[in-house]
């Protein structure tokens, strides 16, 4: 087992993206119909003849962002981003039908085949780490390496930490705002109460719940709260897909056969070179999650970033991720 602590730099550069590669544009944009209903946006950037890597975004429902291209050396990597069902530029927007973990796993395979790629690196944080592990366990022969951040294996204990007993202890102010949308009588099962509102016929009810759900996660995502990212929560195009899809997955417990499924099935991916990057102060997905996965994958490398939270875009976490993809290029 290798667990190490990334360099501690208390006063980091002002630009958190300074440690990443420059912004680039895609050389190919496309859409892929994955079934009669869902149509996915995807894009390729970097080097068309380079080593392929697929980026799995978080949420579920978070969608991709051009910044996500910047974790990879564009001279060495053929960088593939896509928006998962119902979010980003994929259609239909915010749709929950035929939207499960296993649909997404199969979408990744369809996209790989569509692009004529034999094997690829899989990179994902938060829900992206869940989906990355689920995909690797389903199709281990297709994965060259795993680069995972902010580990979430969708166990009961992890869900309870964020929507119950854990995060609220450090962020009681944000928690008060989160629960304020739900009448006290319904707070015993917050996720169901939110689900009812997020799937309500009343657009105002949906919008209010979507904003509060998204604010809760955004306010606790970075070590030091980033006011600019909170403005994201005023964008209904973002929050509605994010909150509805995320809540839908939580209500259905990630569509796993049993809550330990992803951890137990790690026996299938022992051989895949894996780097895990985790912020010490990730209060959404606590370090314990990464610690447990690392124990199940004894050959993996765990890098603990002492001044990192959950976000991929804090300087320490961003640099550790870029260094990981550099080592595998």
């Amino acid at each position, binding site marked *: 087992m290798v667990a190490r602590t990334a360099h501690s730099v*208390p006063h980091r550069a002002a630009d958190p993206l300074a440690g990443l590669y420059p912004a680039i544009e895609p050389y190919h944009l496309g859409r892929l119909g994955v079934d009669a209903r869902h149509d996915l946006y995807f894009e390729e950037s970097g080097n068309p003849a380079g080593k392929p890597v697929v980026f799995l975004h978080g949420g579920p429902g978070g969608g991709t962002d051009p910044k996500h291209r910047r974790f990879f050396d564009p001279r060495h990597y053929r960088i593939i981003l896509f928006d998962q069902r119902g979010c980003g530029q994929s259609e239909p927007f915010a749709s929950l039908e035929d939207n499960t973990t296993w649909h997404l796993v199969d979408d990744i395979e369809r996209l790989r085949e569509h692009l004529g790629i034999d094997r690829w690196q899989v990179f994902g944080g938060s829900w992206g780490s869940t989906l990355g592990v689920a995909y690797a366990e389903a199709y281990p022969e297709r994965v060259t390496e795993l680069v995972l951040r902010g580990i979430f294996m969708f166990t009961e204990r992890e869900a309870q930490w964020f929507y119950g007993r854990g995060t609220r202890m450090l962020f*009681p102010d944000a928690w008060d705002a989160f629960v304020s949308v739900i009448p006290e009588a319904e707070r015993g099962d917050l996720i169901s109460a939110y689900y009812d509102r997020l799937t309500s016929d009343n657009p105002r009810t949906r919008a209010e719940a979507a904003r509060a759900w998204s604010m809760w996660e955004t306010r606790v995502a970075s070590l030091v709260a980033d006011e600019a990212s909170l403005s994201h929560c005023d964008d209904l195009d973002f929050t509605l897909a994010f909150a509805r899809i995320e809540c839908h997955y939580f209500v259905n417990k990630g569509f796993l056969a049993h809550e330990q499924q992803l951890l137990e099935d790690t026996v299938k991916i022992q051989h895949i070179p894996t780097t895990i990057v985790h912020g010490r102060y990730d209060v959404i997905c606590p370090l314990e999650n990464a610690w447990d996965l690392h124990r199940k994958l004894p050959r993996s490398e765990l890098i603990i970033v002492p001044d990192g939270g959950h976000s991929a875009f804090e300087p320490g976490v961003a640099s550790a991720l870029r260094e990981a993809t550099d080592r595998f290029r």
Partner: protein
Amino acid sequence: MLSRRALYPEIEPYRTGMLQVSGLHNLYYEESGNPHGKPVVFLHGGPGSGTDPRQRCFFDPEAYRIVLFDQRGCGRSTPNAELRENTTWDLVADIERLRAHLLIERWQVFGGSWGSTLALAYAQTHPRRVTELVLRGIFLLRRSELLWFYQDGASALFPDAWERFLAPIPAAERSDLMRAYHRRLTSDDEAVQREAARAWSVWEAATSFLLQREDHIAHAATDDFSLAFSRIEAHYFVHRGFLEREQQLLENVGRLRQIPGVIVQGRYDVVCPLHSAWQLHRAWPEADLQIIPDAGHSAFEPGILEALVAATDRFADR
């Protein structure tokens, strides 16, 4: 904008003494700063950690008569690590004895972590003796707070340090770690006591700063520090702080609401999570709650010490 404050320069006490508070216990105390200044008493944490000369530096030595003392059984107080006649209410009475001994009418009370617990207990018992309260890293000594730190809570963020905390305790005893530790810390076998004391003390040291400090962890691991610290802490915690009721310190806030107060709390305090400060703040809205976004538990975190010094400066000429 106010300039950022640092600690005041290190100073020596102008007077030190020992005060006999019971047939068994003798307490070390000291005075520094201005003998004619505004009196303030510093209540250290743990219980059992004792005072440190750097704690004098939270106060302007020209404005304050600074009183530090070591609570029963720790620091330079004797007998060391003694658990008999050692309860919250003994300590509250000691503070009154010391105040009377020093001929002080009323004083400011400054305390963090367990020091905040003791300050609240003292101020609720003797509210007229307190001019202001400056509190940090709020700890209300409730079962939920103890379980967060010693059973399941902080462990999720520090699984690496937690493994070392679990190591001395066999799996069969891990369902109640506080009791398992208490048994070892009160064992007749000194080697057993020492091993448990080191692990108990290192767990807290490893989780007290936003960015772990090796020097702090190394100090916490020494027998000199860890034995009194962990024995006294575990003794208080298995006895639930000798409180009559779980929510006692919160329920009795009404007795001190008229006292000017400042609460300084690190957002990433994983020893005493913000939840408790938040509840205290709601019960006592007159107090000024300051959440430091980039700090953990320790009083010596840069953002926290700035806020603490600003608070004592603000009260200096009242």
